Structures are given as C-alpha cells and as structure tokens.
C-alpha cells in the first residue's frame, strides 16, 4: 500500500526565536531551518512500515517556498520514494494545508496519511484532524504505536489520563507523538541517492485550492518576563521563604 507523509520546514528546535522589533512577525531571517521533529517521526514510521513489508511506496509532500524542497530531500534521504512540493510564497494556515493535502490524497489515493501531531512553530495541532475531516477518514492522533492489519490500522494514542487504542478503517490519517519511534540519521550515500529521486512540484492553484488566510496575526510579542529570583543557601531557608515570603505552603 501507499503512504503519504506530510513534512514541514520550520525553525530548528534549538533556536530561540524572537519577535521583530515592530511586532509584525517572528524574526526568521538567517535562522537555521529544519524538518519539524514530529514530521521526522512520521517519515520514520512510514519507512519502518515499508521495511516490514506493509508499505510499498512512500510519498513525501511539503508546502511552502522553494526552500522546502530541502525538507522533502531530507525525507527522501530517510527512505521516502518520491516527493511532491506544493509551491507558494503565501502564508499557509492549517485549513489551507489540509485542503491542499486533500487534493493530493484524491490524486494519489494513499491508504495511510501520516503527519506530525503539531509543528513546533505554529503549535496548532490541527492539520491532521482537518485533513481527516475533509476526506471523511478516521483519525488516529497523538500516536505512540501503529499496527496495520488487514484493511484497518490499530493506533495507540497518548491521551491525558494515559493511553487509548482505536481501530480505524483504511484509508486513515495518523498523527505522530514523540514516543512513536526514534528517527534514524540519513547516511551520506542515502543523501546522495535522494538527490536523484523524483520530486514533482505543483501549486495550490493547480490543485484548485483557495488558500486565502482566515485569521490575521495582528501582533507578536515576547511573553511577560519572569522576575529574576534568588538562590537560597539550604533547604531550611527554602522552606522558610516558601512559608513566609511566597506563602504557597
């Protein structure tokens, strides 16, 4: 069966971002960009399913400016078979991404779509759920275990109280949690090979999707700074301060 994996280009997770001085946006100029960590886990899961013989083809898709081809190449180096880029310089919100993905799903007809549960820039945690809604598929969000069986997939999900297992009819959408797997590193030969793998480009227009944003960011600002605290000498002083000064115990 065929798997579609969506990957996003985001500011690297080690970078501490700052709002621009005018508060219009986050400053991402000259900042290291990477594949979103949750997306990397999605690629890894697809590759593992292929290694198990469950999956025959992995298609990696990303949306955004030309540079997001780098992230598709990363996915190809990790084991995806081919890539699709939806090229646009416009701002893409999760609803627009989900609609583009729906158009691609209709064309490619994958049995499984794997996405990260959220991107570490927008922190929305929406795209997978919205794609599932638009395509009418079942959704296994925040997955920590995925087992494909005959015509269905069993997904163990991380929920607030612990774990929950659901069974979804294929085709289905799965979004990955951190504990699903540990992504491998791409080896140099695989990075070289990835350069030769096919990568098609399309546009939201060609897919017939209206990507007009529905929400507008009026302002971005740093969060309220915490006052610098004090260091206490020992446990006795700590308990004393918590009782008399902070009055929290």
């Amino acid at each position: 069966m065929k798997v579609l994996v969506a990957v996003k280009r985001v500011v690297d997770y080690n970078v501490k971002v700052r709002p621009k001085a005018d508060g219009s946006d986050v400053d991402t100029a000259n900042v290291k960009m990477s594949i979103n960590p949750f997306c990397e886990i999605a690629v890894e899961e697809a590759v593992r399913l292929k290694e198990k013989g469950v999956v025959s083809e992995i298609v990696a898709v990303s949306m955004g400016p030309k540079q997001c081809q780098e992230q598709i190449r990363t996915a190809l180096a990790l084991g995806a078979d081919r890539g699709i880029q939806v090229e646009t310089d416009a701002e893409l919100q999760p609803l627009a991404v989900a609609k583009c993905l729906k158009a691609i799903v209709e064309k490619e007809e994958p049995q499984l779509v794997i996405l990260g549960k959220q991107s570490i820039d927008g922190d929305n945690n929406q795209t997978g759920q919205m794609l599932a809604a638009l395509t009418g598929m079942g959704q296994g969000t925040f997955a920590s275990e995925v087992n494909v069986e005959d015509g269905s997939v069993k997904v163990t999900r991380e929920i607030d109280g612990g774990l929950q297992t659901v069974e979804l009819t294929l085709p289905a959408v799965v979004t990955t949690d951190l504990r699903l797997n540990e992504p491998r590193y791409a080896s140099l030969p695989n990075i070289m090979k990835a350069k030769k793998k096919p990568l098609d480009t399309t546009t939201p227009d060609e897919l017939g999707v209206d990507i007009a944003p529905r929400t507008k960011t009026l302002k971005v600002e740093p969060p309220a700074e915490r006052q610098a605290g004090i260091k206490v000498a020992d446990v006795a002083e700590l308990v004393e301060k918590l009782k008399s000064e902070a009055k929290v115990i």
Partner: protein
Amino acid sequence: MSILVIAEHDNAELKGATLNTIAAAKAIGGDIDVLVAGSGCGAAAEAAAKAEGVSKVLVADNAAYEHQLAENVAKLVADLGKNYSHVLAPATTTGKNMLPRAAALLDVQPISDIIAVEGPDTFKRPIYAGNVIATVQSSDAIKVASVRTTAFDPVAAEGGSAVVENVDVAEDAAVSKFVGEELAESDRPELTAARVVISGGRGMQNGENFELLYKVADKLGAAVGASRAAVDAGFVPNDMQVGQTGKIVAPDLYVAVGISGAIQHLAGMKDSKVIVAINKDEEAPIFSVADYGLVADLFDAVPELETKL
C-alpha cells in the same frame, strides 16, 4: 452572540477543564450553552447545569459518543455549531483531537490554545513553544477555539441552574472503533488542576527515586510531574510529562527537581506563580526562571525537604 462550550467529561463526572472553558466563554460574552456528548452521561450533564453562567445544557446521550471518538463527536459539534457565533473546547487531548475536525467540517480555521480574549474575534495564543505570544483575529463567521485552561480561572461549579435539553441525534461515522484504554491510576490530584506540582527530570536517575518526590507530594497535597527526559528514559509514564508536548500546568507552586529547564519543558510550566528549582548544576537554565533556586544534590535536598515540611 451565543457560545457553544464542549464539555470535558468521562460520562460520570464533569472535568474541571470545562469550568475554565466556560470562564473563557464568559470573557467573550453572550449566552453560553454547554454540550455534553457521551453515553450514560446524565450525571455530567447535571453537573454542567449547575456551573455558573450556563444558560442551557445540550445532552447527546448515545452509544456512538461513549468514548468521544472524534469522528462521531466532531460531526455533532459541527451540526450544532452552525447556530452559534463561537464554539469552544478545552485544549485537552480530547479537545485537540475533536475540535479541528469539527472546524474543518464548518470550513473554519480554528484557533488553538487561546490564553486571552481581546475581543469577540481577537485572541492571544502562544506560538514557538511559548516563546512568542501572537494576537490573532479571525475573519470566519463562526469562531472555533480551544482554550488553554490554566490561563482562565474556573467559574463556580455550583449555583447555576441551566435548562437541560436532549439532543436527539446519533452520528456514527463508522470509520473508527474504540478498542481499549490504559489509564494511569493515582490518588494524587490531577496534574493540570493541582495547586502544587513537584516534577522530576533526568537527574532523578531512575523510576524508583521518584518515590522521594511522591513523599514530598503527599505532604503538600501535590501532583507529581516529569520532564520529557525523565519520560523518555522510562522513569515514569508519559501522562506525567509537563511541557510543550505534554501537559501545560500553572500551579501556585512548581518545584523542579533535577530538571535542566529546556525550552520544551519551560513552555509547560513557566506560568506557575512560584517556581522552585533544585539542581546541582548552578548553570542550569531552570535557575533563570526560578523564584527560589537551591544548588544542591537532590538526593540530599529532597529527603530533607520532606522532613522539614
């Protein structure tokens, strides 16, 4: 304006997160209706009717909603949501799972994890792991948003007298099935609702050493949390994880033990009122957000803390 709040419950009990979400709805203003979708969820619906500020409780009691599978509940929420200006749900795993699906069915771009209401269409929300606060305005006819519960003080659980109305529908999308669940059992308060939270990190070295934290927690009536490092190392189950990818907490007192203070962890706890850090590395980033820092070996400091409380 009229607002539909989706209740968080386990059929028997209404969860506290619902009360925080009603508080966010009050900040928007307008009539507030609460939807309780479940199976045998009469008790939860009654509790919702008593919450302050609720005008009507809609009860969808059907086997299809027993485990609140997103495929079934989202359809119901989208159908009912058409009649409202706002649809809100708590940003719990249940809310995050269901709400975007409902929004897509309504052709609306939802807004996740709101921490403040600036106007009926304008909200504040954290992005980039809480390092940036964005003010966003929605142009959609129906505003669909999940609410970061720790950012809103809960409304009173008693004193309201809302009308309870049955919704006679059953949406079974028949693409998903509940198989089972494994819930971690604990006598301590729920992590997201606790007044005091004590968390351990990689410095705890193993799961048995968390016993030290449990003893302190029992004296303080605290919940016990963990950093992602402690969870990934297998010390404790992942539902204890505090952080961007775990639970967001904002207790009166947060005690971080053997936690360095990575961005991902800070995103989950830096809105706590008082933060205490116990770490032997005085360069640990956690000290830059801690009100009280103690540079000490946790294996000496934590047992001593327990005896002194």
